């Protein structure tokens, strides 16, 4: 059985230069990555990689190319690579973005594209930060349904209007792009941060939930909503387009109208 099998008849001969990847324009970029390798150096430094990329490529593809073809020691997080898991938030050209949602062609490819870890959280390696403080704040606002009274035998009914009230804040994927873009959070990391407030908002304004008051009390802290300076960095950074600053303002109003 060593004879060559004939080509399957379904295979279509592609003429060179028609279809396939060859048609997508390529361009050269310089990817300037903020490296931090605690095993070898104490200080973080910039490293440039010259890459030839396609017009359909994202920053994540460029990082893959570096890791797979140039320097395997480059470390970064990514899971789904399609803007859902929220693993690959990073500072791209000084703005917090998901690497998997940022197309290279939308950036200025004539200049080096800078990629660094998100700010304000402890840096572990290259583009990886310790997310624990971020999730600690998230846990503190009790991001789960708390209801009083009897369990309903069927589903909990909610009108379309009641669902609409908090629809925007259900979109959060916990990527930390908002919290790590907040200058108040950068200072000392004590502020609860936009992401925790967004996820509190999601339950405070949920008609099925009964612990809104508890969450408002938690966020009435000196490190809570009142530290927000409405700089809109979070709204600008959110890869899901959540109106984060607006959600924070709504929580402020809810606390005010509860006490006054």
């Amino acid at each position, binding site marked *: 059985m060593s004879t060559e099998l004939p080509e399957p008849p379904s295979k279509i001969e592609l003429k060179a230069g028609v279809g396939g990847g060859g048609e997508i324009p390529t361009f050269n970029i310089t990817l300037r990555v903020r490296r931090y390798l*605690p*095993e*070898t*150096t*104490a200080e973080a430094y910039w490293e440039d990689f010259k890459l030839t990329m396609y017009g359909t490529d994202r920053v994540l593809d460029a990082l893959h190319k570096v890791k797979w073809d140039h320097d395997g020691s480059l470390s970064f997080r990514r899971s789904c690579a399609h803007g859902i898991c929220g693993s690959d938030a990073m500072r791209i050209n000084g703005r917090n973005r998901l690497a998997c949602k940022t197309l290279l062609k939308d950036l200025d490819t004539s200049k080096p594209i800078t990629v660094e870890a998100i700010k304000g959280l*402890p840096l*572990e390696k290259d583009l990886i930060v*310790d997310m*624990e*403080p971020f999730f*600690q704040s998230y846990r503190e606002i009790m991001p789960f349904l708390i209801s009083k009274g009897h369990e309903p035998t069927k589903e909990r009914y909610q009108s379309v209007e009641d669902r609409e009230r908090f629809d925007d804040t259900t979109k959060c994927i916990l990527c930390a792009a908002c919290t790590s873009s907040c*200058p*108040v959070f950068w*200072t*000392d*990391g*004590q502020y609860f941060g936009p992401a925790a407030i967004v996820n509190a908002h999601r339950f405070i304004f949920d008609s099925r939930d009964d612990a809104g008051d508890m969450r408002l009390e*938690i966020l*009435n*802290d*000196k*490190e*809570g909503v*009142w*530290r927000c*300076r409405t700089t809109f960095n979070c709204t600008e950074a959110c890869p899901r387009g959540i109106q984060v600053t607006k959600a924070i303002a709504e929580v*402020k109003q809810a*606390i*005010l109208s509860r*006490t*006054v």
Partner: protein
Amino acid sequence: MSVTIPAPRSQRIDPKYKRGPKSRGSFEMLAWLFMRLSGVALIVLIFGHLISNLIVGDGINAISFGFVAGKWADPIWQFWDLAMLWLAMLHGTNGVRTIINDYAEKHSTRAWLKGILYVATIFIVVLGTLVIFTFDPCVAGSTLPQC
């Protein structure tokens, strides 16, 4: 060269991020509310002050020791200037307080800066209030009609 790295999550959370005990009361909320309300009041007070001093009548040319003396003889202007002094000072102090909170990274730096701020505020508010209520236009050799 090698660096010893602690085991991942060995301390679970960086102590720098540990939040202090929960603040009681609603001081931050009241401060936030005060900023907005005093801001609105100050727009009225400051523009009233500017119009009465710089535009009405002879405008800026009328301002003199006598002009101020005449204004402070009227309890309405006394109250106006007192309200302006207190609101502007507390509004400004609260603004600088939040800036210190936002930019100072250490507790001790914060405490020092805020201490200096509060002392300066109290000094100016007390001095200003004293001047408004104890102002005596009849200095020696005064030719003002009140004297």
